[in-house]
């Protein structure tokens, strides 16, 4: 079984080597876009660009990165930029993606910041923002469901996804409690599943 895994990894590596590496400016621009469009949910854009449009990552690769980032401190979307960059181009790729994500939006945001504070009370502006956040919430739900797609035929996966969703959305349990409570059980279930299949 270990051989099988090794072979799969080797062929995957070969497939990666045969395509030209992603350019650093492309990474910079991709995450600049994620940053600028990602009102409250950069995940939606990161998935769309890296998976749907550029085919840099498979749905499973991306889900891997999202999961890993959720398990670590900090803004998850910054982690997605760092990990995607690292996967495609190593350390320099991580830096390119991170700079794309932060540099320009941060400068513009800081400049706009002081201006916006003066107009924060204008009703039309607040209404527009309200509409945008309602929409953004729907997009985030959809992005999560899409990423779950590859797992939908595994009963254990569906069960644990539903449990995580319910505990987080409908109880006051802290995120860490949900994460560290469910993940060991979920991993155990996956282990049993694999042992049975073998």
């Amino acid at each position, binding site marked *: 079984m270990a051989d099988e895994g090794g072979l799969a990894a080797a062929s995957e590596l070969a497939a990666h080597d045969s395509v030209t590496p992603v350019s650093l400016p492309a990474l910079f621009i991709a995450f600049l876009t994620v940053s600028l469009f990602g009102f409250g949910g950069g995940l939606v854009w990161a998935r769309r660009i890296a998976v749907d449009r550029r085919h840099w990552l498979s749905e499973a690769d991306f889900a891997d990165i999202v999961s890993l980032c959720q398990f670590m401190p900090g803004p998850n979307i910054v982690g997605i930029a760092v990990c995607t960059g690292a996967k495609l181009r190593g350390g320099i790729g991580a830096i390119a993606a991170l700079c794309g994500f932060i540099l320009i939006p941060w400068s513009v945001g800081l400049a706009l910041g002081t201006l916006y504070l003066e107009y924060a009370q204008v009703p039309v502006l607040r209404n527009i923002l309200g*509409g945008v956040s309602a*929409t953004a919430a729907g997009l985030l739900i959809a992005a999560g469901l899409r990423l779950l797609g590859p*797992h939908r035929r595994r009963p254990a996966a569906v069960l644990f996804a539903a449990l995580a969703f319910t505990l987080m*959305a409908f109880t006051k349990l802290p995120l860490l409690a949900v*994460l560290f409570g469910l993940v060991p059980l979920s991993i155990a279930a996956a282990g049993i599943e694999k042992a049975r299949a073998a």
Partner: protein
Amino acid sequence: MNGTSSLITLSVHLALLSAISFGGFPTVLPDVRTLVVTAHGWATDQEFANFFAMSQAIPGPNMILMMSLVGWKVAGFPGAVMSAFATFGPPCTIYYVAYRLWDRFRAAPWQDIVRRGLVPVTLGLVVASGTVMARTADVSWQAVSVTAAAAFLMLATRMNPLLILFAGGALGGLGLL
């Protein structure tokens, strides 16, 4: 001099908080508020709330921007830059190291099991955070239908999400939500 020592205090605090901000920076916001408003009086409660609203309204790295505005208030432009680094530096280092380790053991059989256990739980959490966001944003049944319509369009079509967001913003701007 006073500004400098305030800035050092703020940066060190932000760096520590960002390194333990599991689940994203918003989880440690109450702590930042205590430091900035209660303990040091660098900003008023109202100012702090405005920083938050503003960072949410401007696209881009929200929490990094919010902390930069706090830093700006404390020590001007150098304060903004220092606070930004303190907010994204530590987590980025952790992300990078962890991902390299994860990638190195890509072929290991145990990793497949961990992945198959880990992924469903974390994606369930993504869907939940969308729902929690919806609960704050959806103040009316119209807003609830906008959320549902956005999710449906995203799942069922290849429509550009920017168009969907634009439509939602327009409906809000017309006062329909």
